């Protein structure tokens, strides 16, 4: 895309006043940087989704199926019966506006249709106009409008401008959850083949190769091996994990983004080191090599189709239970959907930590434990040798990822870990963390490259809270437990809060981990010299033991 992304001060000049024209009379403008590309034909074909075709959101003709109106009506009707949430959320909103200024996209864009209440009204107005007597007869007077192609375009624009973060739902007096409405709208759009590429293509990849990136089994293994080399270089410890191994006690599943991209790979290295440190009997799977689930951003059915691999692989390998890595929507799916969709997992056992003997009663049915729960338990039972001073050059804050916060409630575990692996931890303002946390701005499949302006706008509230702790406490590291965050934050931080880096919680754990047989940890997992980092924050350098100085690890670590 040749469009230049606006500068921060241009984006920051947001006007939150609505236009004079009624919202039913305004249309979205498909401006480069603000919308997402259409899904490629092959990706829909690959998973048997309707209406595959070549098209572009800026086209006048979206090549909708001949009976598209009937499809939409039927689609709405079917979902009203299947989902009480949808039915009730269509009927009871009083438009009090409590949600209006809670959405990060509204805060960052000022576009009134990004107010959660209006985002829902985009669909509600059709519900009233097509299904309600008053709406059919009185039209606008009863809040109804007719279904037109313009409405479909508007839906596409705005329902792919919602990250399903549920922040609005926290404040709604009836718990109306825009995520739920966006999920329905996307399902309906999907019936017309109106999907975005950044969701549709990962879904197709994941279905066939086991992960969103389309990493084939050997590539996945090779990538891990590169990381093992790095670990050896920086810590002196050679780790030999297993893949697709039958009879392992645990199966570990994490988002594939972390095996591939900076800074997720450092978290991935953290897992490898942590599991080696405690001698965990576990295996990786190349078949279930994706913790994330972009099917969740497509339809309930697609979510189920992709998620099925987790239990299927656990069953095939004969493990006792599943451990899951740091990821946001993955954990929403695991917590609120997986067992219902693909369970019961009665071939697995209630998870018991093989190291501490702790029984994870809270996951007695899903048989899947979060790495932060697992690690917090290890630390609480003194099973990790930790030297938090190794992270002294970091001044850390923690971003609660939307889904673990509002779809799970995992708030204390990562904080407990952080407080044990680093000495400088600072909270962002209370209205921006825990259940009130602000989205990274790129969840629910919106972390593409063509919509950078929209992403920067959506990420602004979170970034502004980071700026707050940077200004007050000199924070230089934003920790999180989500792979999408790690894909999104580096660009957002560089744009809004230069000087702050992003990492996963487990990366910090591994940096503080005193491994058996390790060499002096002159380098962190990123290959950065610790003394250089200490110098940046005016800390005295560490004197490394004589004999190790200038040893083999240091010079080759330039990559």
């Amino acid at each position: 895309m040749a469009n230049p992304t606006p500068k921060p001060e241009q984006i920051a000049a947001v006007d939150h006043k609505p236009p004079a024209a009624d919202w039913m009379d305004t249309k979205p403008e498909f401006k480069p940087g603000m919308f997402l590309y259409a899904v490629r034909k092959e990706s829909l074909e690959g998973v048997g989704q309707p209406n595959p075709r070549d098209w572009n959101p800026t086209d006048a003709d979206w090549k909708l199926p001949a009976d598209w109106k009937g499809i939409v009506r039927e689609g709405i009707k079917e979902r009203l019966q299947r989902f009480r949430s949808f039915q009730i959320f269509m009927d009871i909103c009083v438009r009090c506006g409590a949600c209006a200024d809670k959405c990060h996209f509204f805060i960052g864009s000022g576009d009134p249709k990004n107010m959660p209440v209006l985002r829902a009204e985009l669909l509600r107005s059709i519900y009233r106009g097509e299904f309600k007597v008053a709406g059919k007869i009185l039209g606008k007077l009863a809040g109804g409008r007719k279904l037109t192609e313009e409405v479909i375009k508007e839906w596409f624009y705005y329902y792919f401008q919602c990250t399903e973060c549920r922040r609005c739902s926290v404040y709604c007096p009836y718990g109306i959850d825009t995520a739920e409405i966006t999920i329905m709208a996307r399902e309906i759009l999907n019936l017309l083949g109106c999907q975005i590429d950044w969701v549709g293509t990962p879904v197709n990849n994941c279905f066939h190769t086991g992960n969103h990136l389309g990493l084939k089994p050997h590539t996945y293994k090779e990538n891990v091996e590169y990381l093992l080399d790095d670990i050896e270089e920086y810590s002196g410890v050679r780790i030999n994990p297993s893949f697709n191994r039958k009879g392992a006690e645990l199966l570990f599943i994490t988002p594939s983004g972390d095996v591939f991209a900076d800074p997720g790979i450092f978290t991935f290295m953290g897992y490898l080191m942590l599991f080696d440190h405690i001698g965990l009997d576990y295996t990786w799977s190349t078949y279930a090599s994706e913790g994330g689930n972009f099917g969740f951003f497509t339809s309930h059915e697609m979510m189920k189709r992709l998620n099925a691999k987790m239990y299927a692989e656990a069953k095939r390998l004969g493990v006792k239970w599943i451990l899951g890595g740091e990821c946001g929507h993955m954990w929403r799916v695991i917590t609120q959907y997986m067992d219902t969709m693909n369970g019961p997992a009665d071939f697995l056992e209630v998870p018991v930590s093989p190291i501490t003997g702790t029984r994870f009663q809270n996951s007695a049915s899903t048989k899947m434990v979060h790495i932060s729960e697992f690690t917090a338990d290890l630390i609480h039972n003194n099973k990790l040798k930790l030297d938090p001073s190794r992270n002294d050059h970091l001044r850390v804050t923690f971003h609660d990822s939307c889904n673990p916060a509002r779809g799970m409630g995992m708030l204390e575990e990562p904080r407990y870990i952080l407080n044990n692996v680093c000495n400088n931890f600072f909270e962002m303002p209370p209205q921006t963390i825990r259940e009130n946390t602000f989205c990274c701005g790129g969840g629910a499949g919106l972390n593409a490259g063509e919509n950078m302006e929209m992403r920067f706008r959506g990420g602004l509230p979170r970034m502004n809270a980071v700026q707050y702790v940077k200004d007050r406490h000199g924070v230089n590291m934003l920790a999180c437990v989500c792979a999408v965050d790690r894909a999104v934050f580096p660009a957002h931080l560089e744009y809004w809060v230069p000087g702050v880096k992003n990492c996963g919680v487990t990366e910090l754990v591994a940096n503080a981990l005193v491994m058996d047989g390790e060499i002096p940890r002159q380098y962190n997992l990123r290959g950065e010299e610790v003394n250089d980092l200490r110098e940046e924050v005016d800390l005295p350098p560490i004197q490394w033991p004589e004999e190790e100085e200038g040893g083999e690890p240091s010079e080759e670590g330039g990559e």
Partner: protein
Amino acid sequence: MHVIFSLLAVIVLIAIAYAGVAGAGMTYLFGVVIPYAAVITFFLGLILKVLKWGRSAVPFNIPTTCGQQKSLPWIKPNSVDNPTSTGGVLARMFFEVLTMRSLFRNTKLDYRVAHGQPVIRQGSEKFLWLFAILFHYSFLVVLLWHLRFFMEPVPKLVGVIEALDGFFEFGLPQLLLSGVILVAMAGALLDRRLRMPNIRYISLTSDYFPLFLIMGIGITGILMRYLLRVDITAIKELTMSLAVMKPVIPQAPIDPLFYAHIFLVSVLFAYFPFSKLMHMPGVFMSPTRNLTTNSREVRHVNPWNYPVKTHTYDEYEEDFRDLMIEAGLPVEHNPAEEAAAAEGGGEAAEAEPEAPEEKKE
């Protein structure tokens, strides 16, 4: 347009009642027929709508968690905002319904740009909650002391409520605060809708109309009690006859203002099931609030769960078997090894490395 239309609608409704009673003398229509029809519409409409909601499934356990989960024994869970037990859900619903807990969390965006840098804060904003809670509770109190028109003898409790409501013994008949607060809060909510640009932008006719309607009801009520003073003995004769289902229009004349009042109330009742006012039953049925958050511990069942097409491990291995073998990854079927085994350890094994024959179901 939304505002003007709603206001006009309520004025027209009042005019209809005046014309009907004062002009055409249709006291039976406005005093008996319409109120009965409205009440029947209210109950039938509300019940049918709730039953319709009930016919929609709750396929997934999707509560919004607003507090710490129950996980490790040494981490204190928030059992109200992240309730794993029925008791917790009851507590959550109790606070939600009776104290509007979620609305109490409300904040106000404070967005500024200083030296080209955005400064974003979430300030305290309790007015919406305050207006809303006063509005609803004063409405409740007004409804309760209206029982004195529908019960004979009047229950003691009604008298107590009325005495408390008129605690200040101001004016004559003594001023009942609830009615005044009700109208004032409806006004405050209306004012908010009109003056906050974004709230005005999202408001529909169906948001203004009930506010004007309730204000109309409150104002006609206040006028009847304090200014025009209607014959409440005659009114109670009428309302009691309605309550025991033996309706008669009393002989003593009743001011048309009363008929305007009950006509507006009738409209409110009849309108209720078809409007956003259904948030009253709806709040109890919202799946993000009324479910336990223990879906990892206890499996939630989806009544319409159906099998889907997945990509099985066997299909996957079929696609990538050679690559997997080459990378040293274990496979379920290694054609080379299997062939070798079939040959009884013969050398021919290497001759046929590919076995496209393999078909999995």
